[in-house]
C-alpha cells in the first residue's frame, strides 16, 4: 500500500516537473552549441551587437516586456520604410544639429534591426528602466562636472576620455551600442582563455576561464579586471577593479559587472549583463541583447594614432582666447 502511494506521488511529481520545465510553444529539444576541441561551447566568430531596441523601455509601453510577433513584424516593416518611432534608439545616428552624417559612412537605417528576442527594451523585468541614481552618486558626478566647469578647454586633461582615445563610450563594458558603427566583435577561444576583440578602438579583453580570483584590489584599470568560468554552455564573466573615472552610466569604483554569453542558435549569441554598484543604484539591474553573426573581418581602429580632435579643439580654444584678448574682451 505504502509503495503504491510512493509510486503515485512520484508519478505526479514527474508529470508536474515535466510540465513546469516546458513553456508553451518552446521547442521540445533545446539547441545545443557545438564544442571547441577543448570541449566547451563554441562561441567563436564575428558577432554584431547593434540594435534599434533602446536600453530603457519607452514610457508608453509600461510593463510590457515583449512585442507580439505581429507587433514585431510591424516594427520591422517600419524600419524598412525608414520610419522609426519612439520605440527605437538611433544612438549617434539620430538627427542632431551637428552630427556625423553616418550615411556618409554607408550607414543604411533600413538595414538596422530590433533585438531578435522581441524585447521592448534591453533592460529586462517589469520596470524596464535603469533604477534611480542614489543621491550620493548624483553628488559624486555633479562634483566631478563642477570641477571641470569653466576649464573644459584648458588642456587635454579636461577633455572627455573618448576624445583622448583612452576609452570610447561604446568601448566601455558592459557592451552596449546603438545601431550605427563599431559594433563588430571577434571571439577566439584558446584552452582556458577567451579573447574578445571589440573593433572599436581595438579594445581587447583576454579573459581566463580557469576559475582564478580577481587581481589585487589595489590594481585599478579602465576596463576593470575580468575573470570567467563556464556554467554549462554559458560563459560567465565577472568584472571588478574599475578605476574611479566616472564609469558606466555614472557609476563609481565599486561597479561590479556580471556578463553572460550564451550561443542560443547557429547565428545568435545572447549577451546578458547584470550591473551592480551599491554607491550608485539601490538595486542591481539586468539587460540582454542577442548578438547576430557577422561577416568580419574586424578592421584596425587606430583611434589615438589618427587623433586630430584634441589638437584641433585645444588649438581652437587658444586662438579664440587670443582673439578675445586682442579685442580687449
Amino acid at each position, binding site marked *: 500500500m505504502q509503495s503504491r502511494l510512493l509510486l503515485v506521488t512520484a508519478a505526479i511529481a514527474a508529470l508536474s516537473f515535466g510540465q513546469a520545465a516546458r513553456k508553451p510553444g518552446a521547442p521540445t529539444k533545446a539547441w545545443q552549441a557545438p564544442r571547441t576541441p577543448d570541449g566547451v561551447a563554441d562561441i*567563436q566568430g564575428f558577432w554584431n551587437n547593434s540594435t534599434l531596441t533602446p536600453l530603457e523601455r519607452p514610457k508608453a509601453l509600461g510593463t510590457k516586456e515583449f512585442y507580439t510577433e505581429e507587433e514585431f513584424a510591424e516594427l520591422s516593416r517600419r524600419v524598412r520604410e525608414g520610419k522609426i518611432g519612439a520605440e527605437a534608439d538611433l544612438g549617434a545616428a539620430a538627427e542632431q544639429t551637428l552630427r556625423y552624417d553616418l550615411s556618409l559612412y554607408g550607414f543604411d537605417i533600413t538595414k538596422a534591426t530590433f533585438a531578435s528576442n522581441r524585447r521592448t527594451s534591453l533592460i529586462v523585468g517589469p520596470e524596464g528602466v535603469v533604477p534611480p541614481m542614489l543621491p550620493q552618486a548624483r553628488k559624486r558626478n555633479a562634483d566631478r562636472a563642477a570641477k571641470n566647469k569653466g576649464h573644459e578647454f*584648458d588642456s587635454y586633461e579636461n577633455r572627455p576620455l573618448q576624445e583622448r*582615445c*583612452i576609452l570610447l563610450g561604446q568601448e566601455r563594458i558592459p557592451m552596449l551600442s546603438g545601431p550605427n558603427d563599431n559594433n563588430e566583435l571577434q571571439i*577566439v577561444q*584558446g584552452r582556458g582563455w577567451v579573447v574578445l576583440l571589440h573593433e572599436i578602438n581595438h579594445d581587447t579583453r*583576454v579573459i581566463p576561464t580557469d576559475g582564478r580570483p580577481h587581481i589585487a584590489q589595489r590594481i585599478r584599470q579602465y576596463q576593470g579586471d575580468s575573470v570567467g568560468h563556464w556554467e554549462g554552455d554559458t560563459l560567465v564573466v565577472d568584472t571588478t577593479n574599475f578605476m574611479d573615472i566616472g564609469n558606466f552610466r555614472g557609476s563609481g569604483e565599486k561597479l561590479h559587472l556580471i556578463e553572460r554569453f550564451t550561443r542560443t542558435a547557429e547565428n545568435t549569441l545572447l549577451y546578458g549583463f547584470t550591473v551592480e554598484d551599491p554607491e550608485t543604484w539601490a538595486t542591481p539591474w539586468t539587460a540582454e541583447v542577442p548578438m547576430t553573426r557577422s561577416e568580419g573581418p574586424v578592421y584596425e581602429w587606430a583611434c*589615438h594614432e589618427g587623433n586630430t580632435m584634441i589638437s584641433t579643439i585645444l588649438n581652437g580654444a587658444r586662438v579664440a582666447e587670443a582673439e578675445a584678448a586682442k579685442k580687449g574682451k
Partner: protein
Amino acid sequence: MYDFGVTKLMGLALVGGLLTISAAGQAYKAPRTADGKPNLNGIWQAVNSADWDLLGHAAAQGPVLSLGAVFSRPPGLSVVEGDEIPYLPAALARKKSNQADWVKLDPEVKCYLPGVPRATYLPYPFQIIQSQKTIMVAYEYAGAVRTINLEAPTKAPADSWMGWSNGRWEGESLVVDVSSQNDETWFDHAGDYHSDALHVIERYTPRSADTLNYEATIEDSKVFSRPWKISMPLYRHVEKDAKLLEYKCVEFAEEVLYGPLRKKPRTNP
C-alpha cells in the same frame, strides 16, 4: 677467452650512436592542442634590449639625465644575424638622423601602435590565444592586438599599423606572413625604420616547455638592399595566474603631444 677490447669498442660505438641520434634527430616536440597542433597558448616575453637597438650595443647614457641609471640604455648582444642591417645608402642617412632625434621621432614615445616585429620584443608581455582557424596575439603595450588567419590566406582590406597576418603550420613552427603595414613604425629606439613596402615573415618554434624560438625575416626594397633576419628566444610567464594588465599609455604620451596647447603651463614637471 672474452676479448674485453672488442666489447669496450662495441659499447662505445653503441653509446656514441645513441648520442648521435639524440643530438641530431630529436628536435623538441611541443605538447599538442586538442586539434593536434603545437600548443603556443601562453603569456610570453622577450628578455633583451632589442627595443633599444637591434644591433649589438654597449651601455650608454639615457635621454633624461635626471633619471640617471634608472633610464639609461642597457647593453645587449645583437639580435640581427650578421650584426648588420643592410640599408641602402640614402636610407642609412635617414636612420642616422632618426637616431639622433629619437626622443622626438620614435613613435613608441607617443604610445603609437608598434607594428611587427617590434611588438614581439617590446619590454612588456604578450599573450597568444590559439584556436583552429585563428590565433589572436594580444600585447600588453597600448592594448595592441593582431589576428593571425590560419585558413586560406586573405588580402588586407587596407594598410594598418599592425599589418595583416596570414599564418600556417610548418611542422613544429608557426609561420606568419605579415603584409600591409604602414610606414609609421620603427624597429627600435636607434632609429631603424622601414617603408610601406615592408614584408615580414615570422617563425615561432617551441624549443622547450617554456621557451619559443622567434625569428623574423625582414624585407623592404625601398630601404634595404637585401632581406635580413632577427632571432631571439621568447620566455613563458610561468608565475601562477599570470595575466596581461592594462598599459593604456595614451595618457602618458599626451603631455608630449598636446602639452604646448595648454592654456596655462603645467605647475609640476
